[in-house]
Each structure stands twice: as C-alpha cells, then as structure tokens.
C-alpha cells in the first residue's frame, strides 16, 4: 500500500487482486443488481487509488478501509431516491449470509464465509436479523425496526450487542 500511495500501478494491481472480490461482494449484497454493483465497485476501487496517499494505517487495515468505503458507497446508492424506488423491499428478510453462485465463489474466502456463518448462528434471532438487514441490505436502524416491528431503541441495542458477539466470536481487534 505504501507503493500504491506513492503512485505504483503494479502495487495497485496486486492490491486490486486482494480486495476486488470482497468489494464487489459487499456492494452486490446491498444493491442486488450486478450491473450497478460492478459500476459502484469500480468507483470504489478507483477511489482507493486516488485517495491512497491519504490512507492512515493507524485507523485500521487497508482491507477494512476499502470495505468500509465500499459499503458506504453502496448505501449511498441505495438510499438515493431513484435506486430506492427500483429496489425490491419485499425480498429483504434474510435468514443467513446470502448464497451466491458457487462458480463465482473464491476459494480463499470460503474459510471466512464458514466462520461468519458459524458466528452469526451464535447471535439471537433478533440480533442476527438486525445486523444482516442493516449491513447486507443497507437498511437504516429505523427501517430495520419497521421491518421487524420492534422499538427503535431495541434495534440500536441489538445491533450493538450483535456486533459485540460477532466481534468476540470472530476474534476481531481494531
């Protein structure tokens, strides 16, 4: 990444190979539509190049940085009026991490996938639904509360409690 930050295109290509699949994955989880997802993912990856000199390692790994950016951009897109109108809200309730074509699944991500599935199962039903609706569907906590017919305060605490459990189960440190 320091090479990327210094304008090294080869280093950027190497970084692309590491982050592109998770970036496209999270954008597609939120947007659903593959064409739009590719468009947003490309914007994110170009943004990663453009802003690399401003990346601050003390704020987290490159992967966290770019995936946070990808999720944010996907959310921005989905919350824009046009996208929201075209979106299928009814398909929003998630039971688990979305299943995608096995063909497109990268082998090296299978381990993470299994680990995340396992850890999601340690959450309460309400925690899991809150976290997955918010993250994978890009709903605000207010929308999550409406979907699940629970009070706003409950959703806030379930999101936090769910993330605490996930964090501990996944062994994540900042």
């Amino acid at each position: 990444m320091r090479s990327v930050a210094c304008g090294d295109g080869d280093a950027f290509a190497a970084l692309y190979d590491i982050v592109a699949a998770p970036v496209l994955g999270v954008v597609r989880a939120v947007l659903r539509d593959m064409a739009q997802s590719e468009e947003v993912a490309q914007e994110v990856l170009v943004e990663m190049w453009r802003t690399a000199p401003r990346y601050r390692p003390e704020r987290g790994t490159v992967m966290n940085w770019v995936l946070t950016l990808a999720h944010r951009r996907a959310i921005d897109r989905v919350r824009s009026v046009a996208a929201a109108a075209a979106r299928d809200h009814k398909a929003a309730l998630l039971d688990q991490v979305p299943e995608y074509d096995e063909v497109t699944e990268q082998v090296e991500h299978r381990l993470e996938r299994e680990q995340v599935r396992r850890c999601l199962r340690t959450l309460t039903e309400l925690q899991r639904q809150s976290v997955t609706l918010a993250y994978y569907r890009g709903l605000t906590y207010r929308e999550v509360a409406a979907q699940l017919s629970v009070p706003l305060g409950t959703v806030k605490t379930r999101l936090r409690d769910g993330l605490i459990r996930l964090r501990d189960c996944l062994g994540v440190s900042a």
Partner: protein
Amino acid sequence: MTTADTDPHTLTGAYALHALPDEERARFTRHLSTCGSCADEVAEFTATAAKLAVAVAVTPRPAMRQDVLRRVAAIRQLPPPTRPPRPAGTYRRRLPRLALAACMAVAAGLGGIAVREHGRAEDAATEAQQARQRTDELVAVLGAPDAASRRVPLDGGADATVVVSSARDKAVWMTSGLTAPPAGRVYQLWYDVDGTMRSAGLMDAGRTDRAVVLAGSANSASAVGITIEPAGGSTRPTTTPLALVTLPA
C-alpha cells in the same frame, strides 16, 4: 423513551454498519470526537463488518480488472493531506517528512491483510517484498537528512522534481502528469557531468509517474536531463532535452 433512545453510546453499532440516517450520523460523528471508548468500539465494529463483507466476496469479471487498471492509469492521486502548498516554479527545500512517512508506513497494512485473510498470501507477500525492495533505495534518498529537491515545470502542465542526497551520492527523479512516450520510444534520463551527458537510466514507458533512482554518482553531476530516445535507450542523447534540471546544491 428508553435509555437506548437517549444514550448516544448505544449508537456505535448502527454507526459502524452505516445504519444511521444522515442527521443522526452527523450528530454521532461529533460525539465520537469526544468519546474515546466509543471510537474504539466503532473501530472494532468496523473491522467486524469487514469480515461480513469478505464472507460474501464475489469474483469480478476479468474485464472489470482491466477497466479499473485502465481508469487508474489516467487518474492522478490526491496529495497527502499534510503536504504544504507548493510554491510555483523552481525552488529548493527539504521534502515534507510527513508525506514521506505516509508513503512508507502503509506496507505493513498490505502485508498483514495478505497473510491473514487470503490464500494468495504468498504471491502478495512476494509482490510486497519486491515493491519494498524497489522503494527502499528510493526511501533512503528521499529520507536522507540532507535531501534537497528542485521542481521545474515541463510542457503540457507536467512537472519534474529531482531530489538529491549528497551524503548518499544518489538522486531521485519524479515526474507528474508526463504523458507516455510515443510508441517505440522511451524517456531516458541523463546526468550532466562537466558538459557531457551520461545515461542515468530509462523510465518505464507505461509508468511515467513512478519515481526512479538515477543510476550513477549524483555528486559528480551538475544537472539531470530527460530526452526521448528509441526503445532500449541511447548512449548519447539523440534529441533535444525536454528539460535540464540543475541539481540543488
């Protein structure tokens, strides 16, 4: 109203998942700047969310890679935020240390990701290693206590910067906004040694924005020149230099 509705600390989860409406997000962002434990928790939750993203990874079409790399080749990067505004024209000064530190500090992040999260760790580590070796020499010159730089404008809005360290007897050449050379041609760099041009190496034709450490002794030269030469380079300049930059004393 429940406590959860009023206590801002409980919003860390919603914040990290981008689940706050804009105005609440802005309010909580302000709160974060005064709440260290909240910021720590948000950082951990953000890292947790990244795991959720990796779990749904989808391999992009190969065409997307080509598209992105092509777009990136035409886009100039933002300067590091710590860099002071650059005076116009030729000048001499120490390189900003913070900007350099920003370039140097990031490698650990890339290596860490590669090893922890990916099967292709070995390839990525090798790449990172090569990149590190490439930049080590560069960094040694740029970071030398006696490093001095001079920047000159080139045609077409491009500019060239030479950084020299007498202690290391080396110079680094950097250009910004320089267009690729015509097909079958390369940019060749020269040291002016007592009026004689000595080759100091070629620039990668596709990578004109990449900094290069000049080959040979910087201390014996008075200036650095750049010419367009046939592929493979020449033993003497065959074209008029695009620029001749006097080395900073």
